[in-house]
């Protein structure tokens, strides 16, 4: 059973200074409810919208980065419907003349690289935020916060080109990465990206899932929904065409309304906003576009000779790639790539930290230099990274304080001798053919040295000594 998934992604252009149609600031995220508002974004009688040109510029940049065709003439429409989060009773959005049409994004699909087509990219204003107490279908009352009202929003609509929740997630991460590269979007802010998904099992009715507001949520909501639909089909029931709400806490979808017909939003051109002529904008803004993830990945591979896998991880986030490049300019790029993408990224994820919250690249350089100079072991390096993330500090100082510096080669024979003397049983086991007993002895040496030696070197020396003993006994 082939699954078809199409996404409608709402992206807040939250790096802009002011809202879509007024000069109210966009930094409402930590403000008390209904304090970052003005008569315009509250839709008070008599107010009029005016277009934030920077928002249009950002929208054009996004459309360009998504390989879309920029429309020369763009205009705003009113989308009319009643909902308490909509203070004017209509949303200013786009309809016939959106900013961009017919784009695409390349993702890592289930069967290799895949093109996800983008139908349209349009601008609109965000509604306010409804706060339901408890589950949406059971709440006694609803609170409304209009701080979000009027935030510049992009709606990016894909064709149903994804065939699994994993592909949907890959699309979302790729999109997020592109938006962050463009510096128009901060994905970590609440409500920055919301996704509505259309899911159908080939030939069946289309179900729309609304309100998916986290990256992980996309995969979870879709997995739940696909299982639900497959179970219905297995019982011989056809899924209904309906709108379902994703309950993030319970990770389930709940039916909101069954669609009998398409809703009629009575679109008509917003009379207070004259159409905009975007001819010339595309060329100008194209020249200003930064390097995007795919291009950067190719460059990193070519310039630093790092692996494709490492390059993918590093370029997945703009800040991570920036971090890498700063480190790679001062130490071996391959070493840097491995340590940042395999170790540091994992430690950050474990702590739910972003690269922007990590210690500065200079400290990473210092750490990798210690490794290059063979001053510390890999194990010690991992310990230092953990210490720096949890407590701060500086690699060399942690190395000294924790006694992580590798010991000098000349004290190793002595330690090995005493371990051999103290562990007669293990030595005899080894000599009588139980070769794995050597691991215990290596452990004992490392314990005495508190990890400051290279375990493989210890192994090598121990093996040599034991073989000498063996030869002596035989002789």
């Amino acid at each position, binding site marked *: 059973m082939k699954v078809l998934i199409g996404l409608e992604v709402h992206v807040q252009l939250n790096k802009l200074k002011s809202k879509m149609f007024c000069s109210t600031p966009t930094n409402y995220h930590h403000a008390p409810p209904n304090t970052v508002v003005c008569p315009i974004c509250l839709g008070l009688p008599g107010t*009029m919208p*005016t277009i934030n040109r920077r928002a249009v510029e950002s929208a054009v940049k996004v459309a360009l980065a998504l390989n879309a065709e920029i429309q020369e003439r763009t205009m705003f429409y009113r989308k009319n419907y009643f909902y308490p989060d909509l203070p004017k*009773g209509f949303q200013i959005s786009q309809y016939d003349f959106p900013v961009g049409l017919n784009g695409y994004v390349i993702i890592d699909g289930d069967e290799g690289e895949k093109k996800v087509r983008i139908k349209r990219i349009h601008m609109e204003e965000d509604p306010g935020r409804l706060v339901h107490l408890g589950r949406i279908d059971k709440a006694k009352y*609803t609170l409304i916060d209009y701080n979000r009202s009027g935030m510049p929003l992009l709606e990016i609509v894909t064709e149903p080109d994804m065939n699994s929740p994993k592909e949907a997630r890959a699309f979302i991460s790729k999109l997020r990465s592109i938006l962050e590269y463009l510096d128009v979007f901060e994905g970590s802010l609440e409500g920055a990206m919301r996704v509505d998904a259309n899911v159908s099992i080939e030939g069946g009715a289309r179900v729309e899932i609304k309100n998916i507001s986290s990256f992980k949520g996309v995969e979870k909501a879709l997995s739940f929904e696909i299982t639900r639909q497959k179970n219905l089909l297995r019982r011989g029931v056809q899924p209904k065409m309906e709108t379902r709400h994703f309950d993030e806490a319970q990770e389930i979808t709940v039916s909101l309304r069954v669609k009998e017909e398409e809703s009629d939003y009575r*679109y008509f051109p917003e009379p*207070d906003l004259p159409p905009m002529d975007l001819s010339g904008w595309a060329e100008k803004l194209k020249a200003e576009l930064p390097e995007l993830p795919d291009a950067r990945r190719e460059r990193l591979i070519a310039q630093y000779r790092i692996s494709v896998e490492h390059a993918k991880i590093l370029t997945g986030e703009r800040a991570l790639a920036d971090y890498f490049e700063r480190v790679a300019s001062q130490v071996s790029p391959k070493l840097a790539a491995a340590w940042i993408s395999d170790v540091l990224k994992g430690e950050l994820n474990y702590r739910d930290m972003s690269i922007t919250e990590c210690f500065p690249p200079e400290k990473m350089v210092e750490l990798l230099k210690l490794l290059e100079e063979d001053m510390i072991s890999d194990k010690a390096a991992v310990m230092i990274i953990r210490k720096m993330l949890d407590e701060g500090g500086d690699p060399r100082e942690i190395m000294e304080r924790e006694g992580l510096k590798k010991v000098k080669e000349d004290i190793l024979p002595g330690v090995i001798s005493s371990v051999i003397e103290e562990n007669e049983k293990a030595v005899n086991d080894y000599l009588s053919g139980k070769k794995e007993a050597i691991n215990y002895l290596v452990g004992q040496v490392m314990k005495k040295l508190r990890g400051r030696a290279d375990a493989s070197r210890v192994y090598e020396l121990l093996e040599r000594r034991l073989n000498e003993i063996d030869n002596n006994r035989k002789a």
Partner: protein
Amino acid sequence: MKISEWMEIEDKEGALLRVIERAKKNEFNEFITVNEGAALSEGGLKGLPVAIKDNISTRGIETTCASRILRGYVPPYDAHVVELLKNAGASIIGKTNMDEFAMGTTSETSYFGPVRNPWDKSRVAGGSSGGSAAAVAGGVVPASLGSDTGGSVRCPASFCGIVGLKPTYGAVSRYGLIAYANSLEQIGVFANTVEDAALIFNLIKGRDKRDATSMDSESVLPLREDVGKVRIGVPKEFFGEGVDEGVEREVWNAIKLMEDLGAEYEEISMNYMKYALPAYYIIAMSEASSNLARYDGIRYGLRFENDEDFETTISRIRAEGFGKEVKRRILLGTYALSKGYYGRYYLKALKVRRLIKEEFDRALKKFDVLTTPTMPFVAPKIGEIKDPLSLYMADVNTVPVNLAGVPAISVPCGFSEGLPVGLQLIGRRFGERRLLEIAKWYEDASNIRRLG
């Protein structure tokens, strides 16, 4: 009272108090709210008492659009025009009565009852800006602001025997004007004389960055006495069926007088005018259906205790908050924008609008002004016209001007049945100066009696 007369008053403080007292009497039911706290302030207008239509936002003063649904709504900001008036030193005396949400031709659809005509209190003052017109005609204030979506300034000016100017679309910022039909309406001015109207217009016009459709235009002051060669177009479609004999007579007298003064006139035909009314009502009602969607009682205005769910609550608020005419227009507008009808009605109306605009532009290339009766008849009795369609028909001569976006002025040109008749002069886009100069030139020669 003329503005110049106010300027000469020595005891302005006392005079202002008398104006407030007079306004409080509300003789013509022309005020919804009197701003008793109005005080003298500095500036070129020296405390000039001005009345503002109740659909123009005034900071700290209740603004209702004459609707129950907005009872208690006090705007936290001033409309652009109110800011400009205040900065110039005008005193906002009060908010004037009107047709609910400016939807009407007689100021009878107000939740606060009809406005009475100062010439005959049993008659209507015209609409929708009836209160602003009555306040000037009745001598309460020298000037007032109204709004004109399809004739709402010119109609009451005509019925009340005063001057009413509807500027070019975009000449005056609409920021703060509570929208009925955004693409058609303009804030306009009432005064006893053309010169006074020009003075106030000159003050409120110009680009405002909060209204993307607003633009700067040249100053209209001072109005020159020498108007040079005046070429007048007389479109015969504006003298058609339904225009009263007395009205037609007075308007032709005015044209003849201007001819005697040296003007040339020519009768012309404007073929698309017959489509103006239906196109106008489709556009206006469609926009209105969307503009009025925000009144749900949640954030401001009428609210009842014991809310139920969202839909039940707003249905009840809108059912009880809006009057009959408003509901009629919301329903018709909603219908016109619906899927399957949008192309047939709204898009077609936009096409008609474009044709009408082009027709006006062509005619105004040849003529300085077009002259027509403002209204087909004089002020009817309160309650006389009950059928909504007959009321819509009364706007036949004013709505084409809004569709075309050009400026027009109504000036008194005589009397029929003892009631004032208005002459409509239509000018070129942003050609207010020429329009006002010709209007003043006619006004000076005609010397029609004023009441206030």
